[in-house]
């Protein structure tokens, strides 16, 4: 047995780093008038705000709209400080620029326990990583960080713009700025005079950026904290919203592809003739695997159906490669073996876990597992590209425009500044569109048909069988109770593959040294296992990273998606062993965590915990993820051998709820996503191939199966937490816990199957 420890608290990061504190304040992300491309008649005020000739306030949003509401929530931050209503706002996708890099996506992924937040060590590490984030220019939508990252810079951008409006109006009236204010989207003088924004454009060109700005106090907010209709919805109910597959360019061609069905296989040969014989087919291209993608054969034609139809005529000879015998059962056997053979890397040590177990009077032990999962965004992977005039233009539904540009430039063999990226609406992301495997494919196709633009669209079957799957995982959980049935120790050891080092390897191969160090710091393996608030005197959490050839990636709530199931089911098992009510047992473990307790109590109260009709049972789960705390109480029954979830009561403390309507939407969304995985989600591998290919085999929850969902938000004016993913983790354990109370059977494997237990 090997034993290693890589707790970040143990790295020798010294106090010297603290000196740099404040050198890079959020103001450095304000940008300049030049950051936003100038448009005739408009005036840019900083990197985020432009006043248009028609008096509209144009707000640059540097994150991708994939359903989570960033095109509304982020402009609200600017509009609040600026003093304009959302009706006066126009959203524009931000260009790629360093001020738009997502700092929070890196700082929030440091492997600190939430109890360590605010310590010198945590702040020093965050400072270093924030600096790295700026230098990498990581324009990423992910990790539920959009509002958290924008909270300071976008409010500051709004406040700075407000100061400029006041200065310009004061100059116009020959008055003092203090006599002016911005109200309802116009500037007003104390004496009642008013100026529309469009009448200030000339004066605004002469006003310097302010050297100092003040942010509103929470009690003065007029937009933040109140439900506001989403700005992106009118176009989404009329068919006008443009997704990746809706890009239409003059002379555009369409491409379909077939990637090697066996993981790790290669193309031996293909005869293009049968496809080329089809009317409307332009060419057949073979594409090497790159950026994590598999080698593929593509057909380019005058319509997508023509391309796909011709592709099906080809007989492709694949070399199945080294994994032709691989199965998911084999991978699970290896993960279980790894758990027995390796103590793994310690991510949390409080007290002494093993000693705590040894001193326990009652021991609880269980093994849990979770399968591979596919993202199944409803808009299949696609991308459009054109090589013309020495430049490469790309249109993509992507969560990572800056990574995409980097990978596209590398595939094209040109400099990044010769690549123009346009982000479209995303027909779902869920982490799949953090990947750029389709980018080299479309770049090479665009080169083959240059100067014609080409749109590559994968079939649903390609999308399902060539995903970057949520890693399969197993965990051994051990708990100890003392003679009074009080919790004494919790020891968890899990095994799975680790995502981050592989993501870096496929996107920035030049940075891909030191994979084992990256794996040891990869919080995604243990998030949801090591970072939960329960106050056991003795805790130990370790992870064994075990490589498998299956491509893995970030799926909504990432490690939390399975680790919450392991943790919250096991807490329930301990409660039952202790002969305590699961709600009471959790209260007992949260003495010093009042925010968590309050969320738990709110969910329990609104769900009338303990009161349930005949034939039904309740289950509860609590989980902290992405800076928010969520509790869910579910009500389930069994009907004709199937699990039926009737009601979900969800409580959340997400700090300031910038737009409570979007928070509720995201809770509903996260719950349906998590329930789909809990009841049906499973990708299996046989003969080195993914066995599921379309929705009949990779089943989705439908309207008829969707429970009633109600969301209750804990009032708070703390800084915002993330909401895009936090609703997902608790639902699977809440349902499993309810099933146990219903029929006395503990399901420890996802998806939840009555017959398999």
């Amino acid at each position, binding site marked *: 047995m090997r034993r290693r420890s890589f707790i970040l608290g143990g790295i020798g990061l010294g106090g010297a780093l603290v000196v740099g504190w404040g050198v890079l304040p959020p103001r450095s992300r304000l940008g300049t008038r030049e950051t936003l491309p100038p448009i005739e008649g408009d005036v840019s005020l900083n990197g985020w705000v432009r006043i248009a000739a028609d008096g509209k306030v144009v707000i640059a949003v540097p994150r991708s709209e994939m359903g989570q509401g960033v095109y509304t929530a982020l402009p609200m931050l600017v509009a609040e400080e600026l003093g304009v209503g959302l009706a006066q706002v126009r959203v524009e996708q931000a260009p790629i620029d360093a001020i738009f890099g997502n700092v929070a996506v890196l700082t929030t992924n440091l492997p600190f326990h939430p109890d360590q937040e605010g310590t010198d060590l945590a702040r020093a590490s965050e400072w270093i990583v924030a600096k790295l984030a700026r230098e990498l220019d990581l324009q990423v939508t992910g990790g539920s960080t959009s509002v958290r990252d924008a909270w300071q810079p976008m409010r500051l951008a709004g406040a700075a713009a407000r100061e400029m409006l006041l200065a310009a109006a004061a100059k116009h009236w020959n008055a003092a700025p203090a006599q002016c204010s911005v109200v309802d989207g116009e500037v007003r003088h104390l004496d009642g005079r008013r100026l529309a924004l469009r009448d200030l454009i000339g004066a605004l060109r002469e006003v310097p950026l302010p050297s100092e700005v003040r942010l509103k106090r929470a009690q003065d907010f007029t937009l933040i904290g109140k439900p506001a209709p989403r700005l992106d919805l009118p176009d989404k109910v009329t068919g006008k919203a443009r997704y990746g597959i809706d890009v239409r360019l003059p002379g555009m061609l369409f491409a379909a592809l077939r990637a090697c069905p066996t993981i790790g296989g290669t193309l031996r040969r293909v005869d293009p003739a049968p496809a080329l014989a089809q009317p409307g087919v332009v060419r057949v291209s073979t594409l090497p695997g790159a950026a994590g993608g598999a080698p593929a054969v593509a057909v380019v034609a005058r319509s997508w159906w023509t391309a796909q139809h011709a592709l099906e005529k080809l007989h492709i000879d694949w070399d199945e490669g080294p994994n032709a015998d691989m199965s998911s059962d084999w991978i699970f056997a290896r993960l279980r073996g790894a758990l027995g053979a390796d103590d793994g890397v310690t991510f949390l040590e409080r007290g002494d876990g093993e000693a705590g177990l040894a001193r326990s009077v009652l021991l609880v032990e269980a093994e849990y597992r979770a399968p591979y999962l596919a993202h199944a965004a409803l808009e299949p992977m696609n991308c459009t590209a054109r090589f013309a005039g020495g430049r490469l233009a790309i249109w993509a539904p992507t969560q990572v425009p800056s990574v995409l540009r980097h990978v596209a430039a590398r595939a094209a063999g040109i400099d990044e500044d010769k690549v123009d990226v346009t982000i479209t609406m995303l027909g779902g992301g869920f982490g799949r569109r953090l990947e750029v495997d389709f980018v080299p494919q479309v770049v090479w196709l665009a080169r083959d048909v240059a100067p014609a633009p080409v749109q590559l669209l994968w079939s649903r079957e390609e999308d399902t069988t060539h995903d970057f799957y949520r890693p399969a995982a197993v965990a051994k959980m051990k708990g100890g109770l003392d003679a009074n049935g009080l919790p004494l120790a919790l020891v968890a050891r899990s095994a799975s593959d680790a995502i981050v080092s592989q993501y870096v390897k496929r996107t920035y191969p030049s940075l891909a040294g030191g994979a084992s160090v990256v794996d040891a710091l990869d919080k995604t393996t243990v998030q949801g296992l090591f970072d939960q608030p329960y106050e056991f005197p003795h805790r130990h959490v370790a992870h064994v990273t075990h490589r498998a050839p299956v491509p893995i990636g970030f799926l909504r709530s990432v490690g939390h998606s399975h680790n919450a199931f392991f943790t919250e089911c096991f807490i329930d098992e301990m409660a039952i062993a202790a002969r305590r009510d699961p709600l009471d047992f959790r209260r007992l473990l949260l003495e010093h965590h009042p925010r968590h307790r309050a969320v738990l109590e709110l969910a329990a109260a609104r769900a009338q915990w303990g009161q349930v009709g005949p034939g039904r049972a309740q289950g509860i789960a609590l989980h902290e993820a992405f800076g928010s705390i969520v509790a869910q109480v579910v009500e389930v029954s069994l009907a004709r051998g199937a699990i039926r979830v009737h009601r979900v009561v969800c409580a959340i403390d997400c700090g300031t709820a910038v737009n409570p309507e979007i928070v509720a*939407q995201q809770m509903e969304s996260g719950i349906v996503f998590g329930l789909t995985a809990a009841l049906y989600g499973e990708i299996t591998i046989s003969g080195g191939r993914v066995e599921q290919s379309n*929705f009949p085999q990779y089943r*989705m929850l439908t309207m008829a199966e969707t429970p009633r969902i109600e969301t209750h938000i804990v009032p708070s004016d703390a800084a915002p937490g993330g909401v895009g993913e936090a609703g997902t983790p608790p639902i699977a354990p809440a349902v499993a816990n309810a099933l146990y109370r219903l029929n006395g059977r503990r399901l420890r494997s996802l998806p939840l199957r009555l017959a398999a237990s």
Partner: protein
Amino acid sequence: MEFEVNGRRVSVDADPAMPLLWVLRDLLGLTGTKYGCGIGACGACTVLIDGRAVRSCQLGAADAAGAKILTIEGLGSEKRLHALQRAWIGHQAPQCGYCQSGMLMAAASLLGQIPHPSDAEIDAAMTNICRCGTYPRVRAAIHAAARTPKDAL
């Protein structure tokens, strides 16, 4: 091949086997109707033919020839949204929005047949897949649209 799409007669030169979905998207430039699965399982491609919901990825162009087709682009007018579209906004139903064209067309077909559907009737008719989980809001929006007086439709 001739169709009537959103009240306009159109003529296209298409392979008779090409599904209507691709005729609409790639030949007629009507991109509001989406591709999701290609096997009629997800409903993202739903359009109305003679008032009834049809999954356009499953209907060959030759079989659709001569039909009266309504797509999301023709559901409401420039000046006035359809009652369902207004209810969709009122209930803040869409998230990523990709499946919503199909959802709206399926709902329009449902209300055409059952003006005041029950929850069970909505569940039975609305089999479209939404990966964002908008189902509860879609259901509420259908009820709201059903309550809209007929002359306001």
